[in-house]
Each structure stands twice: as structure tokens, then as C-alpha cells.
């Protein structure tokens, strides 16, 4: 049966390729384009063979809507309109597909969509904002699995996707695309499952290092490439074991790739899997010759890749070293690791902090993931409000790797009603520390560690950090002096003359400061 994609492509083909043989517009003549490596023009169905360029146009519009959806995110004021564009694009794509196919079982499809919709909607309503990283990881795994399922369905029922050749086989190009789609989808799935388990604490965040893992990983990757090649060139009857092996190998490599990566690198991993889920969709788009899927896949793929790059740069780590894994497990003895002598530090109380905050003219708050863990964001916003009532200028400084995923801290502050025009990125605010009276560090550690600038042996050397040492006064909220940041290195800021350590649970401490401010 001809999927209507075939019709579209024939139409486009006929328009674009007039020099082609005369059969271009004839849906009954499936032999006209194969020599040229055309896809999807097969198994013509007389009922739907009538060419409809509107369908192609509809998918293109859906693709453009998705571009606008991302474009809207350039500013908070336009972002919600952007999200609507995304919904409209998706609606167009789904309706177009349903309308242009012989849907024998609309009820079953309706139930499937409804079921998925209810699950998705319920999760989206209930999820805590602190749990966004694991939610996104879980969602990525679903896209990956869906790509595998679609790839398999296309393999089992190629006629429906219009990828049969005249000989009754799937064309080699389609098989490569299908194989790649399944492989990337499977990697996305198993990788995201591991990322989800690590982020949600169902699995230890510390890297698990198998002996000879690089050899195993490279071997499995090579096997996937070889299998894809074999799958594309093998005779049709012999492809089943190959595609099974390909799928299994891809599931395994996804798992192997993520288990050696430590918790600190999770923002990179989540972004990377984001990228993979896009490439998987794009590969499927190639198989189906569907512009909406190709455009979306390319958008999502580049988005994830850029976010991974931003995260890597913010940690001064190369992408390869993140993928190779093991950060935080080996050579953590660098820097002040073993030489942690007891140095004197100053400890203060909430009352002291409140008193000095009141006297300040400008306060910069540096939140980290510890703030999210302690759920201190609401108390923190209250503190900001109280200080502003006293005429103190309060700004928030966010490091790109604060939190567990790109932009996570911004969402948490937004949830606590912090106005987004008071929240600044690292490079925009770093020069202001010299003029600020108080740098208020809550739940952050490595991102303010001056060792990143001065100590070449430190594992975080080269990472861009906040220049809190330039501030007149530093308040550092921390549970105890024992703990260290993700990178496992001591922090000189603790022992500076102008630093006052506020040792307590972040939420409790801020609430006490608020109480003292209110008095």
C-alpha cells in the first residue's frame, strides 16, 4: 500500500526533475525512479497515488513551527509563544499523517495517543522542578525506544513506509538509514536509562569503571558499524539476524558508554543524549523522507550538541574526556586532596550575617545544587525581598554547571518567584564582584574555587569560576567543613580573611537570617 509520502515525492520529483523519464508522475509505474536512488516511491496504491504536494507543504510548515519554537526561547517574554508554535507544529504533523493514510484502526491509535497523553500530562503536572534532569533523561529514553520501534516496524513492513524496491527488497540506502536510526535510538534508550538511574539516585552516581572498557567500547562501536554495513549489503533473506545483533549491540554500547561517567559530568551526558535523540529522529526522517522529522532531528541534534559543548567549556573539560568517563574516581589526589591540614576559618551565626547583609549596598547570591537539595530557594527569595525592602541591591549569579542540567538553577529560582532580570550568567556578572559588599554562596563550591585559576595540579584547573575573592565579604553556607564539592578538592575561599562560614543546613540558615532581618 502506498503511503502518501510516495505521492508527494513523486509530485516533487515530477516538478523538479522534468528531464527525468516520462513515468515520473505515474504512480502505477514504480520502475521510473529506482535507478536514480529515489526512495519511497514504491508499491503504488492507485487509491492514494494521486499526488498531493499539500502534504509535503504541511510537513514543511510543521518543521518551520519547530524552528520558531526554539527561536522563541531567545527571551523569556517570547518563550511561551514559542512553545505554542511547537504544539501547533506537532498537531500539523500528526493530523497530516492521519489524514493522508488509510487508518483502519483509528480507535486503537486514539487509545494509544490518549494513554500516552494522560501519562505524559500527569507526569508533567506532578514532577518537582528539582527532578527535571531525571525527567528529561527519562523522556529521552522514550524517544530512543520509539525510534527503535519505528525502525523495526519499517523493517518488518517496508511497504507501509514506501521503501521497497522493485525487486521486493528494501534499498541499501534505506537500510543504512534504518540501521543507523535503530542504533542511535537504542544507544539513546539504554544511555538515558542509566542517566536516569544515576540522576534519580537509584544507582550510585560514582563512575563504574570496567577493566579494558575503552577496548570493549571501541570494539562494540566497530561491531555496530560493521553490522550496519552487512545489513545494508546482505541479501534480504539474511538480514534478520543482522538487525537483531545490531539492535542488541547498540543497547549494550549505550549502557557501557554511560556507566563510567560520574555524577559531575551528568549535565554533559543529559545534553549529549538530547542530541542523540535528535539524530535518531533525523535518521528515521531519512528513512521516511519526511521533512518535518529531518528538520526537527537536525534542530534537536544541534541543540544537544551545543549544550554539551557549553557544559564542557564551563568545566574546562574536553568532550572526549567526559565520554571516556571516570572523572572523580581516578587521580583525585591532585590539588589539596591529601594535604588537607586543618586551617583556621571563621564561623558566624545567622544574626551576624543578617546584620552585615543589612549594612551592605550590593549583595550577589551564588546558588548551587546544594541549595536545590536543601529546597532553600523559597527562603532565599524571601531573603532577597527582605533585603530589597532595606534598599540593598540583590543579584543572583549562576554558573553554567550549577545544578544538574543546563539552566537548571534558573528554573529553580524562577519557581521561587525570583525575577529573571535579577539573574545573571557568569560572564555578565563576574566583573561586579569587585564592587559588591557581600558574595552570598549557598550550596555552591567548585564554581567559586580560586584553585581553578591558580593551581595547575587541581582537577578543576582552567574552569571558569566566580571571582568571589574580590568581594568585600563572603558568606559561605555549607553543611559542615568536612564535605567537598563534586570535584573533591579543598577550597581556599573557606579560609580567606573576609569569609564567614555559616555552617548549617542551607534552608534552616536562610530562614534564621530572614528572622534576624525581620527583627
Amino acid at each position, binding site marked *: *500500500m502506498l*503511503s502518501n509520502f510516495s505521492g508527494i515525492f513523486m509530485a*516533487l520529483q515530477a516538478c523538479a526533475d522534468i528531464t527525468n523519464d516520462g513515468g515520473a508522475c505515474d504512480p502505477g509505474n514504480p520502475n521510473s525512479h529506482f535507478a*536514480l*536512488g*529515489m*526512495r519511497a516511491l514504491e508499491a503504488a496504491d492507485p487509491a492514494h497515488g494521486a499526488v498531493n504536494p499539500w502534504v509535503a507543504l504541511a510537513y514543511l510548515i510543521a518543521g518551520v513551527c519547530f*524552528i520558531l*519554537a*526554539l*527561536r522563541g*526561547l531567545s527571551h*523569556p517574554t517570547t*518563550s*511561551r509563544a514559542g512553545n505554542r508554535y*511547537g504544539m501547533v507544529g*506537532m498537531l500539523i*504533523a*500528526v493530523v497530516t499523517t492521519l489524514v493522508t493514510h*488509510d487508518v*483502519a484502526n483509528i480507535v486503537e491509535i486514539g487509545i494509544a*495517543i*490518549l*494513554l*500516552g*497523553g494522560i*501519562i*505524559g500530562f500527569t*507526569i*508533567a503536572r506532578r514532577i518537582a522542578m528539582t527532578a527535571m534532569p531525571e*525527567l528529561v533523561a527519562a*523522556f*529521552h529514553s522514550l524517544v530512543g525506544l*520509539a525510534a527503535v*520501534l519505528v525502525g523495526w*516496524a519499517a523493517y*518488518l513492513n517496508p*511497504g*507501509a*513506509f514506501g521503501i521497497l524496491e522493485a525487486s521486493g527488497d528494501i534499498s541499501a540506502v534505506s537500510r543504512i538509514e534504518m540501521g543507523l536510526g535503530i542504533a542511535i535510538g537504542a544507544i539513546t534508550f539504554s544511555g538515558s536509562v542509566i542517566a536516569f538511574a544515576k540522576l534519580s539516585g537509584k544507582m550510585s552516581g560514582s563512575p563504574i569503571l570496567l577493566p579494558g572498557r575503552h577496548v570493549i567500547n571501541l570494539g562494540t562501536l566497530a561491531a555496530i558499524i560493521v553490522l550496519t554495513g552487512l545489513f545494508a549489503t546482505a541479501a534480504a533473506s539474511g538480514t534478520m539476524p543482522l538487525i537483531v545483533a545490531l539492535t542488541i549491540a547498540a543497547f549494550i554500547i549505550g549502557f557501557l558508554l554511560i556507566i563510567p561517567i560520574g555524577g559531575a559530568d551528568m549535565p554533559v551526558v543529559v545534553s549529549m543524549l538530547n542530541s542523540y535523540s535528535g539524530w535518531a529522529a*533525523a535518521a528515521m526522517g*531519512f*528513512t521516511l523522507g519526511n521533512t518535518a*522529522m*529531518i528538520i*526537527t532531528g*537536525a534542530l*534537536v541534534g*544541534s*541543540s544537544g550538541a551545543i*549544550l554539551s559543548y557549553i557544559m564542557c567549556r564551563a568545566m574546562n573539560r574536553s568532550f572526549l574526556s567526559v565520554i571516556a568517563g571516570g572523572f572523580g574516581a581516578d587521580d583525585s589526589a591532585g590539588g589539596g586532596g591529601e594535604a588537607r591540614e586543618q586551617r583556621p576559618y571563621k564561623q558566624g551565626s545567622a544574626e551576624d550575617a543578617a546584620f552585615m547583609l543589612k549594612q551592605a549596598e550590593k549583595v550577589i547570591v551564588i546558588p548551587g545544587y546544594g541549595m536545590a537539595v536543601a529546597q532553600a530557594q523559597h527562603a532565599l527569595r524571601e531573603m532577597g525581598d527582605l533585603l530589597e525592602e532595606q534598599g540593598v541591591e540583590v543579584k543572583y549569579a549562576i554558573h553554567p554547571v550549577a545544578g544538574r*542540567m*543546563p*539552566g537548571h538553577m*534558573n528554573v529553580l529560582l524562577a519557581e521561587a*518567584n525570583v*525575577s*529573571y*532580570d*535579577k539573574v545573571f550568567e557568569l560572564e555578565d556578572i563576574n566583573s561586579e564582584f569587585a564592587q559588591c559588599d557581600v558574595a552570598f554562596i549557598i550550596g555552591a563550591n567548585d564554581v567559586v574555587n580560586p584553585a581553578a585559576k591558580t593551581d595547575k595540579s587541581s582537577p578543576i584547573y582552567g574552569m571558569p569560576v566566580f571571582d568571589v575573592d574580590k568581594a568585600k565579604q563572603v558568606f559561605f553556607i555549607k553543611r559542615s567543613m568536612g564535605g567537598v564539592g563534586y570535584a573533591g578538592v579543598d577550597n581556599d575561599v573557606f579560609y580567606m580573611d573576609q569569609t564567614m562560614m555559616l555552617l548549617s543546613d542551607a534552608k534552616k540558615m536562610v530562614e534564621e537570617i530572614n528572622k534576624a532581618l525581620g527583627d
Partner: protein
Amino acid sequence: MDFISILSIFVLACFVGYYVVWSVTPALHTPLMAVTNAISSVIIVGALVASAEAGSATAKWLGLAGVVLASVNIFGGFAVTERMLAMYKKKEK
């Protein structure tokens, strides 16, 4: 549509994606991930094609399973993005 035409669309879309994503403000990177996740579920189109066709029962069920998974993502992804974006407010002075 021949391979080169599709490839052209793909390559150009990569460039569009590159420039559009760099213009996204870092404050909205989490909603960006949520929404890209939602739109990558456009793969539902493939699942719908598979489930609509009668050619293979296995393919149909695989397709329907794909529809469920992608729908979770579409509704979940857009809803959670909407929820997040609604929180980004500017305080009236």
C-alpha cells in the same frame, strides 16, 4: 525525493539549528531541553504510519507502542515546558 535533496534539507536544518540554539538565552536552557525533547517526538509520524498499515501485525503493534511512547513525550514535554516558562516572571516595579 532523492537522497541529495533530503540531505540538503538536513544540512541546512543543522545550520538553522546551530544559529537558533546559540541565540537561546542560557536562562532557558532547561526549557530548551524539555521542548526539544517534545518536538523530537515527531517520530510519532513514523509510528503512526506503522500502526495505520495492515501489512504486518507485528509492525502494527510496534507502531502502536511507538505511538504511546511518543505521546507520553509530546504531552509531557510540552506541558512541562509550559509549566516552566510560566514561572519566568519579571517583577513589576
